């Protein structure tokens, strides 16, 4: 051909990270690539992994999710088992939102008990999320780390709590999700701090904070692109797999409001709101996506496979 070759090569390689499974489950590896996403160039040993989130606590479900979850069980272990099986999710993200004082105020021991039950019921790899309330999480992470009978990832360690979360993870052999608020320098700093206190690099995932569609997604999009370009260009502290948690897309009024008829059916629209967020994150370079809608897990799983590896 007379046109030049448009393929690009990079000096760096994203570190491969494996999320281990329980007995009978299949572990998931992400990262390991030398190229930008969704392109037939460089090496890409692993496709992006798609997981599903289960949340504890008293939260009203968005109409689209309440429709999808109907009849799938109410206790976290049953719901997780059914949704993982139905959707083909490669990993589970268990959010212990119920421990938040406003969302149920579960005792820490109850949160840890749920983790134990869910991990027994579902053999796929798991990430366990705190409730977001600083004081509760400070008690919750050590309890979860102890209760989990197999290695999981704890989500998340930030600038304030990283010693505590990393300490809990190190003591019981878990991994850590390293969180930063849409800031490439803080993402790098967070990984360096985790490294300093001894968390092995292959047990760290970057969570750059994912803004939902219409509510800051563009910031996430550009930060993910920048982190990925930095990693491929040789910045080791950023050459790590990136996790995008799509939960924020379910907070948008556009994903929830059934009153606006001109916006179309809220059940279909809510699902699409998350799906569009997911594709944009993949286009930017995300290696793991956490969805809430089982049909989105299925759709994304079906499409991010072989031809794009």
């Amino acid at each position, binding site marked *: 051909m007379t046109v030049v070759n448009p393929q690009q090569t990079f000096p760096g390689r994203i570190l491969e990270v494996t999320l281990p499974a329980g007995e009978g489950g299949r572990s998931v590896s992400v990262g390991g690539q030398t190229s930008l996403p969704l392109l037939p160039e460089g090496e890409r040993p692993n496709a992006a992994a798609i997981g599903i989130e289960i949340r504890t606590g008293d939260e009203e479900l968005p109409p689209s999710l309440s429709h999808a979850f109907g009849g799938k069980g109410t206790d976290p272990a049953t719901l997780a088992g059914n949704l993982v099986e139905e959707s083909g999710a490669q990993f589970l993200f268990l959010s212990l939102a119920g421990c938040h004082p406003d969302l149920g105020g579960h005792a820490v021991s109850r949160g840890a008990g749920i983790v134990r039950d869910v991990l027994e019921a579902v053999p796929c790899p798991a990430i366990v999320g705190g409730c977001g309330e600083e004081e509760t999480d400070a008690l919750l992470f050590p309890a979860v780390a102890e209760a989990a009978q197999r290695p999981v990832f704890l989500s998340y360690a930030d600038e304030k709590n990283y010693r505590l979360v990393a300490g809990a993870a190190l003591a019981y052999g878990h991994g850590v999700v390293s969180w930063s608020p849409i800031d490439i320098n803080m993402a790098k700093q967070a990984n360096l701090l985790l490294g300093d206190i001894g968390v092995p690099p292959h047990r760290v995932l970057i969570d750059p904070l994912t803004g939902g569609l219409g509510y800051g997604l563009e910031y996430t999009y550009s930060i993910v*692109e920048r982190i990925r370009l930095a990693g491929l260009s040789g910045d080791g502290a950023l050459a790590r797999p990136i996790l995008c948690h799509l939960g924020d897309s379910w907070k948008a009024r556009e994903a929830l409001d059934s009153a606006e008829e001109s916006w179309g059916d809220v059940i279909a629209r809510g699902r699409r709101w998350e799906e569009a967020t997911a594709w944009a994150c993949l286009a930017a370079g995300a290696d793991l996506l956490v969805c809430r809608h089982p049909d989105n897990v299925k759709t994304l799983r079906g499409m991010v496979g072989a031809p794009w590896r």
Partner: protein
Amino acid sequence: MALTALEIYKLLPKTNCKECGFPTCLAFAMQIAAGKAGIDQCPPASEEAKETLGAASAPPLPKVIVGTGERAVILGDEVVLYRHEKTFYHPTAFAISVSDALDDDAFRDRIRRIRSLSFERMGETLAVDMVAVRCDSGDPARFAAAAAAAKEGAGKPLLLSGPCDALAAALPSLGPDRPLLSPPVGEGEAGARLAAPLGLPLVVRAKGIDGLEKALAAARAAGACDLVADPMPASLPDAVSLSVYLRRLAILHRAREVAFPTAFDLGNGFPSPFAAASLLVPKYGSLLVLDSDDPADIFPLLTLRQNIFTDPQKPIQVEAGIYPIGKANGSSPVVITTNFSLTFFTVRSDIEASRVPAHLLIADCDGMSVLTAWAAGRFTGESIAKILSESGIAGAVSHRTLILPGMVARLSGKIEELSGWRVLVGPQESSALPSYLRRLPPAAFAPADV
């Protein structure tokens, strides 16, 4: 490759004659490098400089205009691969298809639904840009009538998709509206001969980049200038990689022979059109044709486009003023924050989550977040007191109590002193607002003696 300001400076006369309107040659060079000035503004420039800089400052991706007047759609004319390098200028255009084989009622209904795909978000109207009229009937007269009806009914620029005899039939009446012609693959040269005398934009379709290079050359040889390239992907991965490679060739390699805006037909049975559109908005699709007219599909896609094509160099602002949340009334709390859009949306959604009706008072701080605005002196005791007296909030509520972001608690005294309002210090983080608002005693918002 783009030249740096210093490289440009070396080519200039270095006399600081100011004829270009800038104080020095170096300042002018920096403007050229930023794409804000052209070498034609420098009369004394040497021929060599004009030639070098003329080529370097021509946009790497040409601009193609479809339609006329206010609704005209601009395709292409982009300068970077990543929005964080500068910005993306011309949002991906969406065209929704309509078939000329529909009967009159179905056709009118379809056009009505396409026209109603319009949504208000953040002070902008997000709407579908074009109507793609497909010739499925095989009848040129019917196609011409359908195209005219589509233009009349939708009031949007048209993409005319059909064999050249059908396009030719539609052009006498529609030519002046500058439709985008899209003949089938294999009729590219005939299409170019149709487009050339009228100066109309033309979609050139061919499989892959090699195929496009030949077809685009043939279309140019036949006299067409405003070209849009459709690489005819067979699958989703194909669509993304072709789109990325075409854009890389244009921006990184300045490969003029394939540097054109792109069009992708995601209708007509293309697999997973929603996923393809979601990927091609950030990944360089200039024009996407969809068959779906379901707002549940189109609204998320238009919102994604709004996000991706936001200028990352400018913080997005919301309008200053009073935003009632829930059934806010005269005894509802008043919460103040700045007009940085992310701040606004976060605080608003946290107030909504509290289920406590409230008035959100937004201060104009040039789109800065609370701490930044405070540090820059835009969110101060004085400015907040001024908002309390001038925004009309005093008329909207009967109490005189303001909830201030916890980060700027230190402003409380000044606000109370200047405004006479009582200040309650809110939480440090917006995420704590729901529990904070729920725990507020109702007595806090009893009518003040005014």
